[in-house]
């Protein structure tokens, strides 16, 4: 085979892989859309059930305060099952003071069997879409023969795939996160839509500064952290809604029917709050590492490890904002909603670093082509 022929063949393979990648991404979007409708069906069927657990819990509590006797708390007595077999001691837990004792909602299906079925279908479809999208990212990487994060198109498809991966991993770990499905898939569809329309880039070159194993370390952790922060932010937003809903009920207000129907089925605000705290706190050390890895790389590539380049600056701002959030949670008077607002602001910083800095601000990182 002549050299030219080999060259052509290689080019054709890459071309084919790139096309395959695009097809896979579009297919993933189609399946995500199906998953979206399945989640909608879950929520719709779920709205038939009239559980009203939150309201019940909060009104009983109010009644109790008004002088009526509250339902029993949990000073349970371990009872022997019989003479032969004794039951093991059971641990009784109770919420901290000041926290509302609201039970977690049953999830989107609201206890409705059909709703639950649709929910399961939705999760299966999400898994399928995730696998297809993952294939899309992989073939993209193979077609350009490097890591799939050289420009914003690649960033976006990788980011959304990782975010869904995090969600599915949490589900696989039997965490109570199915309630997040609809919100996540909706935004993933938006993200992919943006990627294939506005941000699409056929393929482009990497400058030698990007030829470093730090690229793999720094950028992959950055994308991963972003995806996890995103999952945390969804939890935070839902916490804010659920918290106002609970507040309204607790003060005797009457939330609207739609709000009741939706928020009723979400976990208790305290659970949502804890969920987003754990998620954010868990990745914060990794985010710290990401920034440090970036600094080490900058030290090797540009001769200084920190130079207040816009991208560096915004990573720092994001980091400080999340540190603020963690501090707020340990500071009297800042827990709850205020801390949640800080968490959202911190995520907004991350987003700005991701989109805003690439698009509006020029700096040394601006080779990440739009």
């Amino acid at each position, binding site marked *: 085979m002549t050299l030219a022929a080999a060259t052509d063949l290689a080019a054709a393979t*890459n071309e084919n892989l790139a096309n395959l990648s695009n097809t896979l991404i579009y297919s993933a979007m189609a399946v995500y859309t199906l998953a979206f409708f399945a989640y909608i069906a879950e929520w719709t069927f779920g709205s038939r059930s009239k559980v009203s657990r939150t309201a019940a819990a909060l009104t009983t509590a109010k009644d109790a305060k008004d002088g009526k006797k509250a339902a029993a708390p*949990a000073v349970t007595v371990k009872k022997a099952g019989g003479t032969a077999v*004794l039951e093991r001691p059971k641990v009784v837990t109770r*919420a*901290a003071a000041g926290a509302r004792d609201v039970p977690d909602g049953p999830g989107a299906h609201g206890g409705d069997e059909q709703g639950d079925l649709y929910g399961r279908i939705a999760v299966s479809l999400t898994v399928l879409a995730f696998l297809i999208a993952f294939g899309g990212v992989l073939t993209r990487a193979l077609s350009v023969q490097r890591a799939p994060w050289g420009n914003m198109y690649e960033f976006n498809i990788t980011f959304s795939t990782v975010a869904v991966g995090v969600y599915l991993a949490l589900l696989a770990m039997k965490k109570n996160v199915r309630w997040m499905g609809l919100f996540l898939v909706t935004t993933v569809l938006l993200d992919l839509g943006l990627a294939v329309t506005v941000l699409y880039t056929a393929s482009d070159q990497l400058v030698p500064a990007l030829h470093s194993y730090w690229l793999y370390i720094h950028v992959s952790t950055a994308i991963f952290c972003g995806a996890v922060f995103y999952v945390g932010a969804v939890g935070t937003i839902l916490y804010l809604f659920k918290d106002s809903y609970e507040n309204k009920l607790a003060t005797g207000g009457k939330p609207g029917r739609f709000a009741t129907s939706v928020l009723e089925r979400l976990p208790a605000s305290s659970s949502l709050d804890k969920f987003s705290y754990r998620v954010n706190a868990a990745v914060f050390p990794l985010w710290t590492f990401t920034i440090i890895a970036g600094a*080490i790389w900058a*030290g090797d590539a540009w001769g200084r490890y920190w130079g207040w380049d816009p991208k560096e600056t915004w990573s720092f*701002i994001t980091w400080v904002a999340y540190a603020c959030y963690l501090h*707020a949670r340990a500071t009297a008077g800042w827990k709850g909603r205020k801390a949640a607002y800080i968490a959202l602001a911190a995520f907004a910083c991350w987003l700005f670093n991701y989109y805003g800095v690439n698009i509006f601000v020029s700096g040394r990182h601006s080779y990440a082509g739009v």
Partner: protein
Amino acid sequence: MSTTRDTDVRTGGAGAPDADGEADVARDADGENGMARDAGDLGEAGAQLSTAPREIVVPGSFGGARTPGAVGWLAWAGREAVGWARWFWRQLTSMRVALILLFLLSLGAIPGSLIPQSGTDETKVADFQAQHTTLGPIYEKLGLFHVYSSVWFSAIYILLFISLIGCIVPRTWQFVGQLRGRPPGAPRRLTRLPAYTTWRTEAQPEEVREEALKLLKQRRFRAHAAGDAVAAEKGYLREVGNLAFHMALIVMLIAFAWGQLFKSEGNKLIVEGDGFANTLTQYDDFKSGNLYSTDNLEPFSFTLDDFQGTYEATGPNRGTPRTYQATVDYSEGADGEEKKKTIKVNEPLEIGDSKVYLTAHGYAPVITVRDGKGDVVYRQAVPLLPLDANSTSTGAIKVMDGYRNAKGEREQLGFQAFFLPAYGGEGTAVVSQFPSLLNPVLNLEAYHGDLGVDAGLPQSVYQLEKKNMKEFKDSKGKQLRENLKPGETMQLPGGAGSITFEKGIKEWANFQVTEQPGSGWALAGAFTAIFGLAASLFIQRRRVWVRATTGADGVTVVEMAGLGRSESAKVPEELGALAEHLYDLAPGVPDADATPPDATPPDADAKSEPDADAETPTPEPPAVPAAEGAETK
């Protein structure tokens, strides 16, 4: 509010209903009072699970009554001053102010990313100032063109770090005290703790306590027997991690500041075959920190042996650089032994504190200029500046002296050069098709006259100042301009001489030599910070108590309770595991009746209510059924 500290922990049981009506009254009057009372109920059990500073509110005016006379006034002023100083210090080192300062730090960093900074791009700052005549001076005054070294930004982070130190020191002492002391004894009512379990056993209370102590120690709790209970605590590494993290931040800041003050950064362009010795005069440009002295320049020298760039030849990434590397012969000290080393983009040459980075590269065609008599007046490799990814390059050739024109007069020559390493051939656009030397072509435009370099004004070596230069004309009267291949010569009209594009095109590389002391410390600090942070966020500090007493009917009652710094599912899980273990050692006996073993049942008519999740074998928090405690905060 502010009298409760660490509300998370100390009030673990405040949500519980109370049998005693008087407590209910208290809570109704003020929810926070309820918490404080409950906190008292837990005694010291929940205290100091964290060394976070407490919120202490001190009313203003510290001087108290002023006795008449000057002495009285002085004493009052002294008390007042000390009082306010302490108040200020308390504020500064409180969590709330730390939070606000962190907030300000992130806000303050924003303008620097949106407004051009003189540290990174001087010309952009100049452009901005030229464009915004009103905003420019205001920005200048506010230090917005150098945010990260401005007074106000420095003020924020210095205050933050004073606050940090003021926070760390007492916390460290407090923590050392905790390590030397023992975990606090069991609170009176274990039922009020977030995780609780109990059973009755035939084993003697002393035996149970002994076994519990052994078990807890085995599980690496710090445990001791206190009265009728065993008290244990674990997870001190959390605090260690947290303190290490905050100290590491200080180390990083100092290292960074040190680096800024003592750093230096110089650039030098070197053509293959040429050399460089590390002295100030050899640099093309040089910047340094405020406290840097050029005596600190590391003595070393090197010559650029060879520069190599390889590029993707095919595929969608055709032209993408694969490697850039410069092979140099260097020697340390004034006359050290010569060594070879390859410098790559991400792999600088390190000599002492200095690092030599490869930052740019380009082509340097070798040019020979002859005068009318055929004498060589100029022979040099001329570095040209690349314009695009395919190394289309431009530059100027300036023959400053030694040249005489056809009439024998002194004159200067100038050539505008345009270089394509891979020319596409006749009829294609005048841009290079590929970054390496596939088909090199040098395009030259010739001028003569005065280069304007004698005026002493600084001039770019890549640009020709044509103000006092005249064009050479070709036979058709047009500007003389030719494409040369290596080895070809262009004749200047009228016997003015010639210019030759020699074979053997050289390459040049730009080196940045930096010294940034303190980076080792910064790195060590950074990694300490990460590990400290991970310990601080992933490790739970928690306490466990095991109480074994003889009940009214003579049967031993075991009670176990757990308390964590924050509500975590892990505390009940761990308590469950411990209980299971202890249960094997002190097996349960059936209850005589349904009376809870608690000597004073907290809620008489609630006791027999079965737990909602009673059938679940594993403890699953929160197992508390819908209950009260819905105070709105």
